[in-house]
């Protein structure tokens, strides 16, 4: 019943079903009722990881290696446990930046570098080719098997046929056309493919069901359960060895490396990145996928070992390829229905991989390889072309066909040299090269574009040499000498034993060296190379701080020429209708009437760039938007801002210090100003003093001169008259001398240069002496002088002559102002608390309160100096005040107008006992 037409019809009908599911899912998505927005579809779409490699290859691997197929699924299980930490971060970043592919993601992270995006694309396309060839081989192999049924099921490849009749070529062609119809019908600005995801989820179910069906058939149909299969296998020494595969320690290292590589592959393979990150509808779906997807992998691997042992037991010794056991066991038992189901399961596994992988790769080729080059080379021609969406789709279609044809080419060149799993591992090792740049860029802000470029280039080069080259060489396309003896016979350069490293497993060997070079260059260049530019650091911060608040706030653009120019750029790539729709929606979200009334500000430019990025990739979008927008002044990443703040706080500290200094300076200045004012005041006082002194000196001089002239000019002057005039001259001269003495005395006192004697004195003696000295004066004026004193008066410490000077001054002042004949002056020496006081009371006219304040100043004389001739120098009281002050006492006056005045001074008493009165 199975025949070419049935198999072909079943295959086409199945592809048609997929197409219908995709179409329905797209329609539901357009209607806003997404079919795929649940964690189950998300988990099933992740299962695109299980390809023909899993479906056919795992059994083949198990047949030669026991559990050697398992690390490929243990690794992703481990990685899924980290999904919440790693992929959730990626999803956030991808959504915020409208990332369209793995290359776009890495390029965006490192400063939207078109060079890096292009490199990632090239590495991805070349690295994935073995993987695609594996699918082609599996599909065409299974198809050929069914064609030849019921003849021999030995899968030795038939003689070479022209490629047009080669099943693998036809499969590649059909898959290419199918993928084009499937994935490039329209250009989606979001670059999400809900239809594709729905179809892939369905395929995941189909391949699981098919594999479980054949597993149950082998385990429970052909044998009597797991224990039976293993027991029979254990009976054969060759098979028993497969149950304890870890013979030597080195195998554990192989296992660990393969696990690590698979951990990287589950996020780094372009199609896995596509379904896990780009196609994710809601990051909440991650939580359930953390266990659902590993459960899926456990289920699809559950029967691998029984099938492998069943096949080995059943076909033991024949040439049946273990990679085909899944299909050849049902065929050998003529279970045609099951065989057809298995064929469709394998087809599901292979087509799912090819569809998602080529769509993801074509997006990368278009956005990160072709567009940047085209935009750079022919920017001006492009502006005139209208149908950009059509061009973009054409580029992608071309890329899909090209990739599949290259996959076929690899299949022709190297397809037969390796089993399915070994072929796939070559691609895994290539995909793992993205790991450092991709994962490092998520957490390490210091990773630079140069580091990523160096790491990826180095790792890829090592991969080419240690992984791809041996695979191609082994197929006879290069000199096999190369593998056996190294290039030019240099042993230590042997691709499979670089530097003589004795590692048997080619995957471990390639991973070891490529990762050392990749991680080493990535970290080394990032750390030791030139620091990243500000724009690059801004992108790094956007990625690493995606869960923080800073990611959204850094403006990249200043603004655009006009809203129309921006819309025109968008229209060129998305179509005018879609562009207008987007702008209107944006305007609506801003509460603006229409796109026309929008401001061409930084936010609008950012919005337009994101929309464009969704269609043509971040690097190209930036190039295009830059034609109509101005870049903002270099945005500062947060850590630079922090540096600046650090510096600023230092500056603030300095300025605080400076402020303090300034305050001190101001205080000092104020002090200086006060001192200066005081100096100026003193200067003025000195000037006043000098002018006053000059004036006081001139008065007696004028008298002396006038009388001298009279005597000189009148020789015949009467003797009496002459005598009187000479007396006046003498008197004025004495006055002048006294004045000069007093000025000198005052100057001495004020400058502190006066000679002071210091002895214990009894003030009563001084008072009595002074009274004696002035008694003639008192008598001549007819003024009475009374002297009164306490019985016990303590001594004071002072200069006798100086104190006498004070007493004489006070007494002569008193007598000066007393009325003639009726005058009365009373002197009293008394002991008060700790001091000795002397009061000199007169019954003169008294001193008004305002005069009392100033009479101790220099040259202040009470009375109208214009009408009354001054009776003294005006310095006496000043000198007295100075003298009393010098000995720690005080001098003051109490007076009332018309009731006389009392001049008093007090000096501190010495501790010695008061002396008794000696004489009055």
């Amino acid at each position, binding site marked *: 019943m199975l025949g070419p037409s049935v198999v072909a019809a079943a295959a086409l009908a199945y592809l048609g079903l997929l197409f219908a599911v995709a179409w329905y899912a797209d329609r539901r998505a357009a209607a806003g009722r997404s079919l795929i927005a649940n964690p189950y579809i998300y988990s099933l779409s992740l299962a695109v990881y299980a390809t023909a490699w899993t479906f056919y290859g795992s059994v083949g691997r198990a047949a030669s290696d026991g559990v050697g197929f398992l690390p490929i699924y243990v690794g992703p299980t481990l990685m899924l*446990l980290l999904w919440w930490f790693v992929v959730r971060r990626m999803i956030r970043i991808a959504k915020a930046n409208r990332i369209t592919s793995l290359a776009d993601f890495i390029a965006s992270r490192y400063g939207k570098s078109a060079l890096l995006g292009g490199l990632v694309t090239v590495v991805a396309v070349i690295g994935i080719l073995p993987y695609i060839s594996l699918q082609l081989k599996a599909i065409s192999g299974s198809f050929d098997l069914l064609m030849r049924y019921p003849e021999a099921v030995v899968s030795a490849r038939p003689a070479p046929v022209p490629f047009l009749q080669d099943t693998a070529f036809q499969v590649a062609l059909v898959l290419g056309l199918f993928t084009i119809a499937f994935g490039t019908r329209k250009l989606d600005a979001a670059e999400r493919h809900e239809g594709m995801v729905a179809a892939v989820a369905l395929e995941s179910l189909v391949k699981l069901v098919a594999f479980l069906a054949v597993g149950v058939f082998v385990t429970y149909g052909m044998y009597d359960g797991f*224990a039976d299969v*293993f027991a029979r296998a254990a009976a054969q020494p060759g098979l028993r060895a497969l149950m304890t595969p*870890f013979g030597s320690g080195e195998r554990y290292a192989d296992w660990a490396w393969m696990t690590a590589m698979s951990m990287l592959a589950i996020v780094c393979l372009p199609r896995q990145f596509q379904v896990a990150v780009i196609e994710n509808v809601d990051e909440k779906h991650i939580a359930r996928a*953390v266990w659902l997807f590993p459960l899926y992998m456990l289920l699809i691997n559950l029967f691998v070992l029984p099938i492998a042992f069943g096949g080995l037991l059943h076909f033991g010794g024949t040439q049946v390829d273990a990679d085909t056991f899944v299909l050849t066991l049902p065929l050998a038992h003529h279970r045609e229905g099951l065989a057809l189901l298995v064929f469709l399961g394998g087809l599901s596994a292979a087509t799912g991989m090819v569809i998602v992988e080529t769509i993801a790769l074509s997006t990368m080729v278009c956005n990160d390889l072709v567009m940047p080059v085209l935009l750079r080379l022919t920017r001006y021609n492009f502006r005139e072309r209208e149908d950009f969406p059509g061009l973009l789709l054409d580029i992608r279609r071309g890329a899909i066909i090209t990739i599949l044809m290259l996959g076929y080419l690899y299949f022709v060149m190297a397809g037969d040299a390796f089993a399915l799993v070994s072929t796939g591992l070559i691609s895994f090792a290539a995909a793992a090269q993205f790991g450092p740049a991709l994962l490092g860029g998520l957490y390490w802000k210091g990773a630079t574009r140069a580091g990523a470029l160096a790491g990826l280039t180095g790792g890829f080069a090592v991969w080419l040499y240690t992984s791809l080259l041996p695979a191609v060489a082994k197929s006879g396309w290069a000199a096999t000498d190369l593998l056996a003896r190294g290039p030019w016979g240099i042993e230590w350069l042997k691709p499979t034993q670089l530097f003589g490293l004795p590692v048997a497993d080619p995957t471990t060997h390639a991973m070891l060296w490529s990762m050392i070079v990749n991680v080493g260059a990535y970290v080394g260049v990032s750390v030791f190379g030139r620091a990243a530019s500000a724009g690059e650091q801004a992108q790094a911060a956007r990625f690493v701080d995606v869960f923080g608040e800073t990611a959204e706030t850094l403006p990249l653009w200043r603004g655009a020429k006009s809203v129309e120019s921006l819309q025109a750029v968008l229209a060129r790539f998305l179509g005018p209708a879609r562009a207008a729709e987007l702008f209107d929606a944006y305007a609506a979200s801003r509460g603006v009437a229409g796109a026309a009334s929008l401001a061409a500000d930084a936010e609008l430019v950012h919005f337009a760039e994101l929309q464009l990025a969704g269609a043509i990739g971040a690097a190209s979008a930036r190039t295009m938007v830059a034609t109509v927008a101005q870049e903002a002044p270099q945005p500062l990443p947060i850590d630079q801002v922090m540096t600046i703040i650090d510096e600023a706080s230092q500056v603030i500290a300095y300025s605080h210090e400076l402020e303090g200094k300034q305050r001190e300076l101001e205080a000092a200045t104020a002090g200086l100003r006060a001192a200066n004012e005081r100096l100026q005041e003193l200067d003025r006082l000195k000037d006043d003093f000098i002018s006053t002194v000059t004036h006081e000196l001139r008065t007696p001089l004028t008298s002396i001169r006038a009388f001298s002239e009279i005597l000189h000019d009148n020789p015949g002057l009467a003797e009496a008259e002459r005598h009187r005039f000479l007396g006046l001259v003498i008197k004025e001269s004495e006055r002048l001398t006294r004045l000069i003495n007093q000025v000198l005395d005052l100057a001495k006192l004020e400058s502190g240069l006066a000679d002071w004697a210091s002895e214990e004195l009894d003030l009563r003696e001084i008072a009595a002496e002074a009274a004696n000295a002035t008694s003639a004066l008192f008598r001549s004026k007819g003024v009475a002088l009374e002297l009164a004193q306490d019985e016990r008066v303590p001594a004071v410490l002072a200069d006798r002559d100086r104190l006498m000077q004070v007493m004489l001054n006070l007494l002569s002042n008193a007598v000066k102002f007393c009325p003639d004949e009726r005058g009365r002056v009373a002197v009293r020496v008394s002991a008060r608390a700790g001091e000795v006081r002397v009061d000199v009371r007169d019954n003169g006219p008294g001193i008004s309160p305002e005069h009392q304040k100033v009479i101790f100043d220099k040259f202040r004389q009470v009375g109208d100096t214009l009408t009354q001739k001054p009776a003294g120098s005006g310095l006496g009281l000043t000198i007295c005040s100075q003298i009393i002050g010098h000995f720690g006492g005080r001098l003051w006056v109490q007076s009332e107008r018309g009731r006389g005045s009392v001049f008093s001074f007090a000096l501190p008493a010495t501790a010695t006992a008061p002396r008794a009165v000696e004489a009055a």
Partner: protein
Amino acid sequence: MPASVRAARLFCLFLAALLLFNYPLLAVFSGPGSVLGIPVLYAYLFAAWLAVIALAALLVRRLA
């Protein structure tokens, strides 16, 4: 229980799984012998795998 604690537990499960699926635990179970007729290494790997999945399912229940 805060989400960070749940996330930390999930990360611990990852570390535990790393241990389960590598040397030396792998070597402990890679000898001859069988459990219920299943070679001990196979039984161990699948049982450990299932346990990790079950624990993960428990831990992520209210993560999102």
